[in-house]
């Protein structure tokens, strides 16, 4: 992760977390404030409801009293008492009286509870209202809630019952007003709040919304244990107030619905603001990280570029020192370190050059010493033969000159090898079928591997059929392969197995091919492996130490690599990797 990214992430994270914390705190405070306000509003609404309930109840009682004292009702009572009346003619009396007194419910019932006239359900005349006959002091009872059965279903009434003496019995006057939506609508409006009366507790929820489910749960709870109860949902707060009848039976539930939409809107606004703040934090972090990069990471990146240059071999690369801070000090140290490295490299090159010259001298001395000694002996033999036995000189001369010529050829060969190594030409690249080349090279050594004068060496070819052609100098590459095979054969004086393997390497960014030459000889020590490609280094008795150096030179000229892996006693494998 770059320094710039770290700076960006740090600043952004800090700002976002800060904004989130502030938003959370504000949101919590707002929620608490709203809920407090909701509770107050709900309490006020319930208080208004109760107040209106009492006022209407008193009003109903007053109106029913007026009806009880009206001439029509008094006359009806007198006639009832005298048992000389056909009550049928009073069938629609209640409707007229209820209209006069603005009552929704009014029933006139005889001493046996039979309805003489009903305003709310005129067809019910003759039916009995047995609850009126209960031993109740209706005057003291005042008003009460009563569930009234109507033609179009049950209704809730704020009722009062009065009695008028009718002979030995009583004429019952039960009147009231509906407690319904109109009643609730008459309450002072409370913005954001809705009230409704739930009478049918088993009615299915009008919708499948969370608010409906919440209401259903609340109703169920209040039904089981009538009490004032509130439940808060995601978008609404519901408060249920049980409305009980004269016998404390639950008749209806006043449901106060307090919308949390305003709170939700405010929360959304806070979240929006937080998002904007967070986004601003991200932008701020981005800007600051860019600024910080220009101040901090640019010198560091320049220094990293210098490091890459030096690693790539540009020892002249130097860091620019623009400041005296830590980064400037770092650049200064880098420059000093580079200079020291250059000095050390030069010293090493010098040392290696001296060592190479010494090695060359040693090899030259070694190589030249072998032919020079026979030359010296031969010349001394000639001198002795001239002096000691002139008659035999001619024969000695002939033998000595042939020896001299042979040794001189030997010297010429040695000089030619060194000359060849020095004159390695640049490769002429052309498409090369490596599998074919490997097969050709292996075939060259068939006779040698199967020769009767030495232990047999088995040959194994493992060639990749999907090997692409490579761009290479076929002569140089063939020479390098020959050298490797020759080395491998030399490493197996007691016989063994020569394995030649080609392989397509697909796992690398650039397609490559690999050629491996493995022997099952004695193997090499790690030290030998390390020095194996050094010119003039050899582990053989008669090698020049140039074979593998030439191989490495060829591979290097083809932009390839050569490696060796070996362990003593387990053979050695040389691996060449070339670009396809």
């Amino acid at each position, binding site marked *: 992760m770059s320094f710039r990214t770290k700076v960006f992430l740090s600043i952004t994270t800090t700002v976002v977390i800060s904004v989130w914390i502030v938003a959370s705190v504000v949101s919590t405070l707002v929620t608490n404030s709203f809920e407090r306000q909701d509770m107050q509003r709900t309490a006020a609404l319930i208080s208004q409801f109760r107040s209106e309930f009492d006022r209407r109840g008193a009003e109903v009682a007053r109106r029913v009293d007026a009806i009880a004292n009206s001439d029509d009702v008094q006359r009806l009572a007198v006639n009832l008492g005298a048992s000389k009346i056909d009550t049928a003619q009073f069938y629609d009396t209640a409707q007229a009286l209820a209209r006069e007194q603005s009552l929704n419910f009014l029933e006139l019932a005889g001493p046996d509870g039979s309805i003489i006239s009903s305003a709310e*359900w005129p067809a019910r005349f003759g039916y009995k209202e047995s609850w009126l006959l209960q031993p109740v002091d209706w005057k003291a009872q005042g008003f009460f809630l009563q569930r009234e059965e109507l*033609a179009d279903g049950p209704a809730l009434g704020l009722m009062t019952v009065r009695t008028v003496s009718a002979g030995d019995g009583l004429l019952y006057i039960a009147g009231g007003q509906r407690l319904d939506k109109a009643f609730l609508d008459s309450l002072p409006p409370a913005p954001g709040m809705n009230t409704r009366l739930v009478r049918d507790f088993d009615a299915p929820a009008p919708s499948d919304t969370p608010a409906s489910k919440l209401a259903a749960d609340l109703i169920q709870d209040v039904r089981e244990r009538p009490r004032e109860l509130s439940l808060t949902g995601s978008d609404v707060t519901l408060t249920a107030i049980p409305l009980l009848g004269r016998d404390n039976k639950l008749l209806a539930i006043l449901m106060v619905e307090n919308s949390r939409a305003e709170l939700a809107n405010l929360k959304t606004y806070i979240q929006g603001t937080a998002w904007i703040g967070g986004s601003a934090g991200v932008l701020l972090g981005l800007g600051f990280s860019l600024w910080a990069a220009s101040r901090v990471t640019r010198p560091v990146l320049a220094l990293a570029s210098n490091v890459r240059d030096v690693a790539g071999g540009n020892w002249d690369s130097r860091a620019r020192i623009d400041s005296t801070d830590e980064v400037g000090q770092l650049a200064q140290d880098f420059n000093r370190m580079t200079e020291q490295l250059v000095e050390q490299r030069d010293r090493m090159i010098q040392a290696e050059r001296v060592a190479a010259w010494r090695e060359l001298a040693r090899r030259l001395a070694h190589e030249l010493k072998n032919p020079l000694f026979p030359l010296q002996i031969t010349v001394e033999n000639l001198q002795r033969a001239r002096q000691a036995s002139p008659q035999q000189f001619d024969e000695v001369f002939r033998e000595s000159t042939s020896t001299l010529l042979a040794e001189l050829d030997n010297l010429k060969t040695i000089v030619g090898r060194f000359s060849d190594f020095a004159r390695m030409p640049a490769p002429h690249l052309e498409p090369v079928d490596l599998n074919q080349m490997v097969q050709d090279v292996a075939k060259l050594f068939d006779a040698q591997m199967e020769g009767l004068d030495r232990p047999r060496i088995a040959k194994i070819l493992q060639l990749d059929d999907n090997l692409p052609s490579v761009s290479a100098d076929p002569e140089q590459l063939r020479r390098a392969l020959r050298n490797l095979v020759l080395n491998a054969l030399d490493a197996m004086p007691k016989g063994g197995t020569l394995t030649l393997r080609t392989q397509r390497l697909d796992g690398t960014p650039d397609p490559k091919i690999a050629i491996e030459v493995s022997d099952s000889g004695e193997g090499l020590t790690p030290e030998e492996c390390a020095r194996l490609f050094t010119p003039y280094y050899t582990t053989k008795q008669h090698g020049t130490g140039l074979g593998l150096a030439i191989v490495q030179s060829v591979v290097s000229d083809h932009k390839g690599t050569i490696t060796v892996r070996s362990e003593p006693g387990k053979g050695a494998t040389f691996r060449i990797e070339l670009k396809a």
Partner: protein
Amino acid sequence: MRLRAWAWLALSSIWLTALTGTTRPRYGGALTVELSSASFMLDPVNTHGRLSPAIAETLVRVNARGAIEPRLALAWQHEPDNKRWRFSLRPKVSFHDGEPLTAVNAAPALLAALKKKYGDVTVTAGGQTLVVQFEHPMPDLLAELTHPETAIFHKGDANAVIGTGPFRVAAWEPGRRLALAAFEDYWGGRPFLDSIIISVGAGSVRADVFDIPFGATRRVVPEGFHIWTSAPNELIALLAANPQSTLLQALSLAIDRTPIVNVLAQRRGEAAFGILPQWLSGYAFLFQAAPDLARARQLISQLRLPSINLTYPANDSFARAVAERVALNARDAGITIQPTTNPGGSLTLVRWPLDSANAAEELTRLLGFLGASDRAASLDPAKPETLYEAERVLLDDHRVIPLVYLPAIYGLAPRVHNWEAAQKLDPFRLNLENLWVDQ
């Protein structure tokens, strides 16, 4: 003695003069009529016949004894196969616009009226003779021609009805007001009244004649006014759209008709268990049955009960009260009925005005209304048992559940005379043309 005799004679003359002064018809004066019922639409052509005889007359009519007598047709004869009828029109009859009544100008109205029911009818005219030809036998044509729908009239300016009756249309506000003026050239002689002004829905108690609809039993009747109640001439019944015998039987058993009569109709009606009232059929008492809730509940115990909509006429408070009472009785039996004014209910509360003193004809009309005209073929007016059987079958499949018979009730001002006699002429219609009033 002679002086005393002369004095007695003088006093008797004065008394007789006074007496005859109140009973002898007087010409002149205007009769105001206030009607409340929606059935009186004040359309002279579409009034169920209750007003039209005063304006437009039929060829024949039914008299107080139930016999058919001449009206615009003086004589008639028919072929033995009852397919061809020939009517001789009354001479010297003119329409309200002065045009004389001839077969030519009577034929279009008659043909249009008969075509509504009989597609094979043709009417040809020649002089004062109308020939009515059917492709099928029409033995009851005379009874058919007593219906006001077959009255002879034509339309004048502003769509006004121009008939031959004793009164002509002087002004007409459809659905609200109809003013009739005496037709001086009426063939039967000028009517007593100069004019009749009929209005609907004004609620005035100052009218000379007003109807007292059921559902408004507490209407204030001015002092001195007389309440007149006709014989039951209207049947309130439930009609089932889809016969479901068991359910309807249970409903019929659940309905207690007595409170409907006693309370809703204020004892002015009769409980109906059959189609035709007792006075008309003579056998209606055979259908009487007491309500039986237990039996009703037993009948429906195995049924899967739908909620039933009971449609009753809008703006008819009595029908609404009856429908609600029926729903209440049904609820006691476990049947859910919802009264409504929306059409299309599986039950309909109908007010069926009886239109004829002929029981067979009335039953035929009802069977036709119910789409069971084929059953009418078995009816024989001379054999009441055929009527009873037809009615019993009709009741047994419970397509009709009779509830109550209602009379017509009118409030009459003291100055209105000849009411009883006028109504006897046609017990099913409001007969105003023969009334007269004190000035």
